[in-house]
């Protein structure tokens, strides 16, 4: 099994490397909105001194950390997999003795991620010089505690996206469904604004949803903003969602493959 993963890694890395110019464009595209949010909230914090206890520097460190965390926890499975179901090329992968989603697609996503992170590092440094974040509250313990949280966040996100992508077995409108799912992420993950500044109702809901595990939770752990009990609670929620997303994905996948009948002769 290890050998299979190793080989898949080589193939997928080479494949992603071909598209490095597109990858940079994607990275650039993706960077803009966090920077806009950063600018908006810093400008408010500067004009008022602070927003609900958040100073300008708190916003800058939050979004600068978000750039990294989001790159680690996010995935592009909808863009790399849904079309294979639609045009029938998935049948080649289905006859292999390994799970198409949990091996090939997973490795492909990680290869993509590695490349974008490599591209992000220099950009991040330039942004850090421009915005001058003060990371005084970050400790090694915080970063170490956040690493498993980010890995969990990635796997939960990947499984949920994979389940939504598998809806393509039934309908061609899977991209619209994914767009709706993306709006939920935007609302509940803390991408637009640190969740504590959201209306109370949204905050209460967000704490039990998986989306905050993609951004808000790991960021706050890194920045040392959470107490030990809050971190433990976060991990419990993450554990529960990991189990739920595994079950959900397996169920959608199993029924979807039964439904699948490839296009073409």
């Amino acid at each position, binding site marked *: 099994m290890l050998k299979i993963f190793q080989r898949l890694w080589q193939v997928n890395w080479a494949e992603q490397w071909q598209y490095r*110019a*597109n990858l940079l*464009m994607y990275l*650039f*595209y993706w*960077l*803009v*909105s966090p*920077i*806009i949010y950063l*600018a*908006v909230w810093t*400008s*408010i914090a500067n*004009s*008022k001194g602070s*927003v*609900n206890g958040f100073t300008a520097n708190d916003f800058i460190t939050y979004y600068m950390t978000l750039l990294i965390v989001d790159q680690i926890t996010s995935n592009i499975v909808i863009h790399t997999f849904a079309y294979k179901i639609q045009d029938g090329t998935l049948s080649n992968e289905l006859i292999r003795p390994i799970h198409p989603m949990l091996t090939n697609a997973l490795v492909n996503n990680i290869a993509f991620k590695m490349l974008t992170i490599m591209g992000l590092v220099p950009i991040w440094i330039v942004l850090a010089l*421009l*915005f001058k974040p003060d990371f005084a509250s970050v400790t090694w313990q915080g970063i170490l505690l956040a690493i498993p949280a980010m890995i969990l966040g990635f796997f939960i996100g990947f499984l949920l996206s994979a389940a939504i992508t598998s809806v393509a077995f039934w309908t061609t*409108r899977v991209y*619209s469904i994914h*767009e*709706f799912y993306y*709006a939920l992420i*935007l*609302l509940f993950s803390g991408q*637009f*604004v640190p969740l504590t*500044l*959201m*209306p109370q109702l949204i905050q209460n809901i967000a704490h039990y949803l998986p989306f905050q595990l993609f951004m808000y939770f790991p960021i706050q752990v890194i920045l040392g903003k959470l107490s030990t009990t809050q971190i433990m609670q976060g991990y419990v929620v993450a554990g529960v969602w990991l189990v739920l997303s595994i079950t959900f994905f397996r169920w959608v996948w199993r029924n979807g493959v039964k439904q699948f009948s490839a296009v073409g002769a």
Partner: protein
Amino acid sequence: MYYLKLLNTFLKVNIQMSLAYRADTIVNILLNIMWLGWELLGLSIIFGNTTSLGGWGYGELITLLGVFRLVNTFMIALIWPNTEKFNQSIRDGSMDYTILQPVNSMFLVTFSRISVWRIWDLVLAVVLIVTGINISGDITTPISILTFLLLTVSGTIVLYSLWIVLIALTFWFTKFDNNVTILQALLDSGRYPVTVYPVWLRIIVTFIIPIALATTVPLQALRGDLNLLRVLMFLGISTVSFLIASRIWKAGLKKYSGASS
């Protein structure tokens, strides 16, 4: 007149094409309403924490959202679909047929694809603009409304000219099919007044990729922040940029040599 007739034909063709995808249209409209809800929620979250953003109030940001959606609709309904078609035609050489027509090629390249159902989005944008003005309580005069409209159009022309330049570059660099990504990516900055951005970003979205000219500037005119000299300057910029763009387009056409052997 001839061009109006052509435009009419393009509209008819595009309506027929979109009628084939009725269910998709409905889904798209629903998604669009969802994003509008999200945008309004975002604004109310911002203004739940502050009373002004870069010196602008809640109502003014709603108006700005309307103006942004106006420009954005222009891009989504016209510019992006035609970019896709254009890049394709450079790659497979079907640009030949466009050039052979006895019509201005820039006109053909701009209008041959239209996402017709987006028209309702324009109505929505106007509703947002009017509602925003009412909430903000800004005093509008016929002159301020006129300059607002003029500057929205002239700002859009500047963006359009930039687009022409970007796609014309494809004549020289055939592989440059990421030509509009930079424009697409930065467009979102138009949702907020440029005054909230740090200086370097303000310079980019004002002078290099001048999104602000089509979003922030018209609203400044509506608020009466601009004197006559500035207004004339912006109108001048849009005329000059359009002239430069059509020059570059013509030069690019000369460079074009088809895709076949």
